[in-house]
């Protein structure tokens, strides 16, 4: 990690001092919070912007399930500042315009304390300006680089899931050291794929490797055989991030193209999130590597935190629903909802949050956060929050498909995902 990203500790300390009540208030918190709770039977209302319909619906179901599990655990333990947490869920239709409307409803109709939840980047980008205007703390679980890139605002934070830039950067050292120096990238030809192209190419170069070829696939493509001959012969590693309904066809045709002799293959699990690795046509993935945000399969060294998290959400050791082993979860991403809710809880407790009048204090309290140790609240792993960029950084997992399951082969350090700050949101007015 760079010096810039280490700065948050200093910056956030300054920020914390500016915060209403500052550190002194924070130290008096537990008593104060209980007092505040006793004064108000009103629940803490968290607006949950969820993809119920539209292209994000498959994620929405698991984001909802994880969110409800986290809220139950929080409430069973006494809520936040002695007040119960209530989720007010609104469907954003995976639609940026509706996303903005939903944020407005949270602030004006439902009297929510904060907004939370959504995944798809375009919805976050469409909704965030409204959250900023309404001064509604807006906690996203989107994975996009748009928060840390500086294109959003002081009221938008991503404290529960790492961003794609960080994920991709952290992969390059492993790929170069263990799989090969000469990489060909295959990616869908739109923003999502372009992010991978740009970030990984730069990271590979910095690590001493090189990307030989970029193969961009039109998003509506459904047969890929004509693209595979473009892969240069000297390719040692094939990097793929295909998404959408054609992804199984992609893998199947890739297997048919290469046969038994193939380069090393590395992909992002986004391609196969919620898809059973043992699906027909995916046999070819055996022996290939994947980035995983959170290991889908329980590992031999599974922590008690991951175990408790799975039990609470109702996910078995294979990452599927406990009630249906074929119902595979979006395990690599949905932990972000759980962890974000605990960040909100911790932030509200640090800020002595009582109601909407303390929203600015809540922002400052979250900006003041730094280390987030691996725990029941952070079952995916330890993290460091950067208060300036509003983005959290954490460990990443690299798994290999073995016997139809994903076994973790390497866990990156948090530092491998650091990059220079691109914004300082704390300089924006509250």
């Amino acid at each position, binding site marked *: 990690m760079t010096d810039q990203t280490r700065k948050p500790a200093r910056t956030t300390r300054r920020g914390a001092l500016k915060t209403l009540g500052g550190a002194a208030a924070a130290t008096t918190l537990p008593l104060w919070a209980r007092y505040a709770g006793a004064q108000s039977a009103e629940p803490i209302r968290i607006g949950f912007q969820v993809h119920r319909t539209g292209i994000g619906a498959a994620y929405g179901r698991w984001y909802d399930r994880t969110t409800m599990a986290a809220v139950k655990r929080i409430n069973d333990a006494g809520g936040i500042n002695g007040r119960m947490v209530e989720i007010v869920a609104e469907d954003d239709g995976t*639609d940026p315009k509706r996303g903005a409307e939903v944020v407005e409803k949270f602030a004006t109709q439902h009297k929510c304390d904060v907004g939370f939840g959504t995944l798809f980047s375009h919805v976050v980008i469409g909704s965030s300006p409204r959250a900023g205007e309404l001064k509604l703390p807006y906690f996203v679980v989107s994975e996009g680089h748009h928060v840390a890139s500086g294109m959003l605002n002081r009221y938008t934070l991503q404290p529960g899931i790492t961003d794609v830039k960080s994920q991709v950067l952290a992969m390059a050292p492993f790929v170069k050291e263990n799989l090969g120096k000469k990489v060909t990238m295959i990616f869908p030809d739109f923003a999502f794929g372009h992010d991978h192209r740009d970030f990984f190419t730069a990271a590979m170069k910095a690590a001493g490797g090189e990307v030989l070829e970029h193969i961009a696939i039109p998003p509506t493509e459904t047969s890929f055989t004509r693209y595979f001959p473009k892969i240069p012969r000297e390719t040692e590693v094939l990097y793929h991030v295909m998404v959408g309904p054609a992804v199984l066809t992609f893998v199947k045709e890739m297997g048919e193209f290469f046969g038994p002799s193939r380069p090393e293959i590395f992909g992002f699990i986004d391609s196969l999130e919620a898809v059973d690795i043992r699906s027909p046509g995916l046999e070819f993935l055996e022996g290939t590597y994947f980035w995983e945000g959170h290991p889908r399969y329980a590992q031999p060294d599974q922590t008690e935190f991951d175990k408790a998290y799975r039990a609470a959400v109702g996910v078995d050791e294979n990452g599927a629903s406990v009630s249906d082993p074929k119902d595979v979860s979006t395990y690599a991403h949905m932990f972000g909802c759980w962890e974000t809710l605990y960040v909100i809880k911790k932030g509200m407790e640090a800020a002595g949050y009582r109601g909407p009048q303390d929203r600015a204090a809540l922002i400052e309290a979250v900006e003041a956060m730094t280390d987030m140790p691996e725990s029941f609240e952070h079952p995916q792993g330890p993290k460091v929050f950067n208060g300036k960029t509003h983005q959290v950084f954490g460990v990443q997992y690299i798994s290999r498909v073995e016997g139809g399951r994903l076994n973790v082969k390497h866990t990156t350090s948090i530092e491998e995902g650091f990059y220079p700050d691109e914004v300082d949101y704390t300089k924006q007015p509250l």
Partner: protein
Amino acid sequence: MGLSTWRCADLRLVRASRLGIIGAMTCSLRLILASLALAASTGAAHAHASEGGLVLLLPTDLYVGAGAGAVALTVLLLTVLPDRVTLGLFRPLAGPRLPRLPGRVVVSCLSFLVLVALVGIGAVGPTDPQKNLLPLSVWTLFWVGLVTLQGLFGNLWAWVNPWTGPVAVTREITGARAALRLSPRLGHAVAIATWLGFAAFLLVDPAPADPRRLAAVVWGYWVFTFAATLAFGPRWLRRAEAFTVFLGIYARVAILGRRGGRLRAGVPGWRIFAARAPLPGLSVLMVMMLATGSFDGLNETFWWFSVLGLNPLEFPGRSAVVLPNLAGLLVANAGLVAAFALTVWAGLRLARSEMGPGDGFRLFAPTLLPIALGYHVAHYLTSFMVDGQYALLAATDPLGRGDDLLGLGKVYVTTGFFNTLGSMRVIWLSMAGAVVLGHVIAVLLAHAVAVRALGPGRRAALSQAPLAIFMIFYTLFGLWLLASPRGL
């Protein structure tokens, strides 16, 4: 639409072109179809119809070919089968005597009370559309479930509609009588306009499942219809209320029916065969029902996204396509009505029949209903499998307070059946089967109707030639819709 859009996830398992002989045949037919659909849609065309993008692991080309082949075979079979056999198919079996059962007013009043409760839940219950019983009842239990039951078992709506009871009770209490007269010249125009409005709400509105919004729409429509029925009398329901008219139409396809005082059962369509040709407005609405259902499938395909120049993998949402989808809906409706009229006219010309094109249209339009019902079932099967679970969970906890009124215990919604090739094959073939069966029945029914209207032999067969081609192509189109990769 359904509340959820699982058709996206499930169709991951359907596969891209695996061209066998039949595949190659269907591929070229598909190209023709795509260009026809293109010509019939917005006209703002990127010519690269994503011919299918048929993403899937199932050999859907083979299935699509086999389905269309089955319909083509039915057409060929009709040329050698004696006409009396075809006519006999639509002769129902007589069951026990069935007097008119009393109690419709009571059931309708109960239905109204349920509606009031649902609207209340929509207005103050959970804001999540998949946890609120109102959108789940409207879009899953009513629009998918009741419409299907109506199409299979007859006019259940005559019992459960929420107006006849309250109107009868109000009239009884107040002694009010209809003060206004619904002009017969209007025909079914109001019902058609309302139907289009409903279709636009279903397919174009950005948030038709939003509980608060839906509560306002449902309650507003109930009040409007109640007032109109009081003012114009029960004729309003029969002529102008879209759902009574629409569901009455679907009841004609049912297996069961009451005729001559007896309960009878027969091949779907026997009631159409037994009835007179519908009034002009009704027959137009019948074709529109098929057109709307087809557009409901078309507007989710990669092909449609290509037409609109959108990337389906980062679809900007329904609010970004309101006008194109509205235009598409209207063009699809007008286009199919025109195409069907042309087909019927061509058939009558070929047969040198003296029947006017309008009469022909009225006569044959009901034969499309089995297709519309088959496609309705196919299109919504997957969303029903998911949203049906959500409906059950919402019923056990209608106010979202953590209640468990039905004693279900801890239940998780699952979509695991979309994750194995075996179960997905069964689901897809069930969908395709509904479409193919609808077309086979439609072909048989149209032939029977033609034989009766134009006389047996060559004339009836000739009159059916264009319609038979139309139906084979429509089978391909319907199955192509099911096999296409979707962006929603």
